[in-house]
């Protein structure tokens, strides 16, 4: 395995992503956890750039480290935000969950650790956004339109769910 610049970039980004995830598990304050996860999301955007998916990387930064993080911070702010994430879960339960996940990780890792897939030269990095746009508006037009309907339904549904319905009893 050669230590090219690409490999070094991959190692750095993967390290930042995993450190962000581990901090998510170990920090005590809820806001700190969300901020730690921003590092993970930005590092994953870098991984997408390495995989010649520049448009997905831009969308990742916009949606995840922008929108979803902010919406989660709003959720923390609107609820009880001063409590520590208390560690009074049963030790045995945590241990059992950890063992189960370790078993799952080991089973999947056996499948992928020397996974040799052929690699052919690609043209994905040339005009990446144009390729995505062409595919999205020709081959995947119906899922694209369904996604817009899904987003509308989610918007209306979440407003109705979060709406304060106190005045039903008062005014009627």
């Amino acid at each position, binding site marked *: 395995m050669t230590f090219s610049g690409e490999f070094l970039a991959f190692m750095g980004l993967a390290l930042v992503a995993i450190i962000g995830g581990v901090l998510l598990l170990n920090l005590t304050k809820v806001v700190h956890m969300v901020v730690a996860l921003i590092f993970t999301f930005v590092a994953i955007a870098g991984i997408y750039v390495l995989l010649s998916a520049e448009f997905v990387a831009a969308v990742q930064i916009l949606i995840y480290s922008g929108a979803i993080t902010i919406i*989660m911070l709003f959720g923390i702010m609107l609820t009880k935000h001063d409590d520590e994430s208390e560690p009074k879960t049963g030790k045995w339960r945590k241990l059992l969950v950890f063992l189960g996940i370790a078993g799952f990780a080991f089973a999947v890792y056996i499948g992928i650790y020397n996974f040799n897939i052929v690699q052919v030269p690609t043209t994905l990095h040339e005009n990446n956004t144009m390729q995505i746009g062409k595919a999205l508006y020709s081959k995947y037009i119906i899922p694209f339109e369904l996604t817009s309907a899904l987003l509308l339904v989610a918007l209306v549904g979440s407003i109705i769910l979060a709406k304060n319905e106190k005045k039903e009893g008062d005014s009627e």
Partner: protein
Amino acid sequence: MSSVPASAFLALALILFCIGLYGALTKRNTVIVLISIELMLNAVNINLVTFSKYGLNPSITGQIFALFTISVAAAEAAVGLAILISLYRAKKTVNIDEMDIMKH
């Protein structure tokens, strides 16, 4: 051609998925559980984009799938947060252990 093997990307996605799964199963704050689920969806996206580049006939389809996953995940986060806020209004707690009215 990339000098990083595909299994390195898959292993990174596996580690992030396991971190997200552990967080979703052990954390008590519902917001953190939701954001752990987002982390798991991100790990899946890494796999999709990896297989859009590697393999015998690489194509743009994997990246399109990743974009659809991102939009569905955003909708899921919004609806989950709305449910959380209306639950908080009713029960004054975000502790996931106390949200058990459907259990009894």
